């Protein structure tokens, strides 16, 4: 009721150019019928009183809007008749102004193009999906969207393809957000998407890469988990697929790949964070990427991005046997990390997964490497435990920018070293 009256007031204020400055809304509690009768007589006093809730019965409140010039008289009337009241709204115009501000703000939160998108803040899944669609619309000759599958809960698995043409050119894959609580990764992925379209045609290095290769970017690789971190549990990591025979939900998508599947560094217990799943590629989010990679057949680099720890890692996680290309991967990691550090001094460690962070079986880049994608890397972005997963929004842009330098090093090397 009040909302309707406020709306009416807004309507009148906007179109009737009436102002409600200094007007107050009083909530009156009449204690008996005699007081109700008195209140019914208020309009006769010709003080410009406007009933928002008419006097009917002593048990129900009476709300009146009182123009500023009549306030003193009305309050004296009430007090001299021992009628209880409180000031419900101290200044009606203030309230209208504030609501107008809120309405404008709500519209502003919806960016109309990707230039208006707030990269320095965290976003919901819908905002990211809207961003993806806008980016495609704005860059029809460079960007397209591929839906590689559906999540368990039926959400589209959207991949941005950046391509200047050709047919099945060698490709570079980047994914963020496979672990949903690692929010700085999805935020960085969004920034990377915009960075690519901005730099193509302006930055010689990126332009050279895109003239020969395609880039694929999956920003919300675990959309069900991501939605869950917004709605229910900020610390959710896994997918949201139920596990039969257990009350515990979800599979660790970075233990679900067919590379050393079932080994040490993954769990068979559905209630744990590193539960590997009933079988390799059981998760639709993982299967979709597997199918894409195998169908494409020409990916030359694969980068899967996580947080936190500040590390750049290469295979393997499931075995201590060094990767065949370890020397080259290590040298490239060193260069990439140096480039990253050059921007803000952020220190990274680098090395194989199993020696640098922990043993982990069934991991993404072990599988992609064993598929023949030589330049397979995993990032662990900021920080090292101070904020952990809850990285402040003001670190999104610095993180994205420094990580981009490392990504460029990897992409440039991939482009310069065809195999």
């Amino acid at each position, binding site marked *: 009721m009040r909302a309707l009256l406020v709306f009416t007031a807004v309507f009148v204020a906007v179109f009737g150019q009436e102002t409600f400055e200094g007007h107050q809304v009083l909530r009156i509690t009449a204690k008996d019928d005699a007081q109700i009768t008195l209140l019914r007589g208020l309009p006769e006093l010709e003080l410009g009183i406007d009933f928002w809730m008419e006097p009917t019965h002593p048990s129900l409140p009476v709300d009146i809007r009182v123009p500023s010039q009549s306030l003193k008289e009305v309050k004296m009337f009430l007090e001299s008749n021992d009628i209880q009241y409180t000031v419900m709204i101290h200044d009606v115009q203030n309230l209208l102004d504030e609501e107008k501000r809120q309405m404008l703000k709500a519209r502003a939160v919806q960016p109309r193009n990707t230039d208006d998108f707030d990269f320095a803040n965290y976003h919901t899944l819908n905002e990211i999906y809207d961003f993806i669609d806008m980016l495609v619309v704005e860059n029809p000759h460079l960007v397209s969207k591929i839906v590689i599958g559906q999540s368990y809960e039926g959400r589209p698995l959207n991949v941005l393809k950046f391509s200047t043409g050709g047919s099945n050119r060698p490709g570079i894959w980047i994914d963020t957000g496979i672990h949903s609580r690692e929010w700085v990764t999805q935020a960085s992925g969004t920034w990377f998407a915009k960075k690519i379209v901005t730099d193509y045609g302006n930055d010689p290095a990126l332009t050279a890469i895109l003239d020969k290769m395609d880039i694929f970017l999956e920003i919300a690789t675990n959309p069900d988990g991501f939605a869950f971190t917004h709605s229910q549990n900020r610390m*959710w990591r896994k997918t949201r697929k139920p596990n039969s025979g257990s*009350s*515990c939900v979800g599979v660790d998508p970075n233990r679900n790949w067919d590379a050393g599947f079932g080994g040490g560094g993954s769990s*068979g217990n559905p209630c744990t964070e590193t539960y590997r799943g009933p079988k390799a590629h059981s998760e639709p989010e993982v299967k979709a990427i597997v199918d894409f990679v195998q169908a494409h057949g020409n990916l030359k680099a694969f980068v899967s991005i996580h947080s936190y720890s500040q590390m750049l890692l290469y295979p393997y996680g499931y075995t201590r046997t060094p990767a065949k290309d370890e020397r080259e991967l290590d040298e490239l990691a060193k260069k990439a990390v140096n480039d990253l550090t050059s921007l803000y001094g952020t*220190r990274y460690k680098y090395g194989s997964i199993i020696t640098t962070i922990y043993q982990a079986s069934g991991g993404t880049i072990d599988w992609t490497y064993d598929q023949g994608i030589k330049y397979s890397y995993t990032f662990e972005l900021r920080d*090292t435990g101070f904020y952990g997963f809850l990285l402040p929004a003001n670190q999104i842009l610095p993180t994205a920018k420094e990580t981009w330098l490392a990504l460029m090093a990897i992409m440039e090397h991939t482009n310069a070293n065809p195999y």
Partner: protein
Amino acid sequence: AHTVLYITGLQFVLKLTPHTPAASPSVPGQEDIQAAMPVEELDPSHYPATRAAKVAEHFINTRYGSPFAWFGSSGVKKAGLEVRAKLHFTLKEMTRNQDMGLCSAEVLFHRADERKPPQVQCTCSGAFQVNTSAEEEDLYQRLRNATSLLSGSDIPNSVGHIDPEMAPFWHLGGVASSFIMLRESNESTLLNMAHIDNFTQMETKDAQLMFQYDILLHDMVSQEILKWKLLLSWSPDGGVKVLEAEWDPKCRSCERAHLTVTTGIAAEQEMKGDNNNV
């Protein structure tokens, strides 16, 4: 005193000479060390060094952590492992981004009994001369004189935001958590405080201020989120003390309570069980 310490850069390794029983004086704790164990030099960027450094970090925080100083780490330069890790590292106070100089620590992991907490010895060149006494006294007096008990929740929030007035209580939670994390650490853990669900100031009759904290810890190795309730006291003179600590085994990532949990210890082992690394 209160500072939150992080290890910034481990500088060099001391190679340990093999321990010979005849030469060893009787030192408490040394009974766990096997005779003539060769020293393995550790790669500073590999996890054994990183994990040992994190333990040293927690140790330093328990001694020198404060609502107004929280130290952070940056990198291991060198490390050696016997049953213990010897580390040299640079230390940083995180709230002011202040370099604190060079520290050396020994972290002894009890391999024979993983439930025994690691032993740490540590000395730092610059000592922990963070002058926080004015701010501590100010906060202490404000809380003593306040008419109502303070509380807070969701620190940091989902987007990593912390209200400036809440920051000292975030640091305090981190320092108090270090007591628990020090005790719970072993060679297969890397613990950080992930979130303060809420904290409440409690009534006290004595000089110490008392707080109840509900916190979440994160173990990087198992990736588990561990829920702990802490009762802690603090005063500028008394420092930070953890009076009571209780682990809530109910799985945070589960829809319902973990069905097979019977005791805290059993649940702990279950959670860690499949992650026994080689």
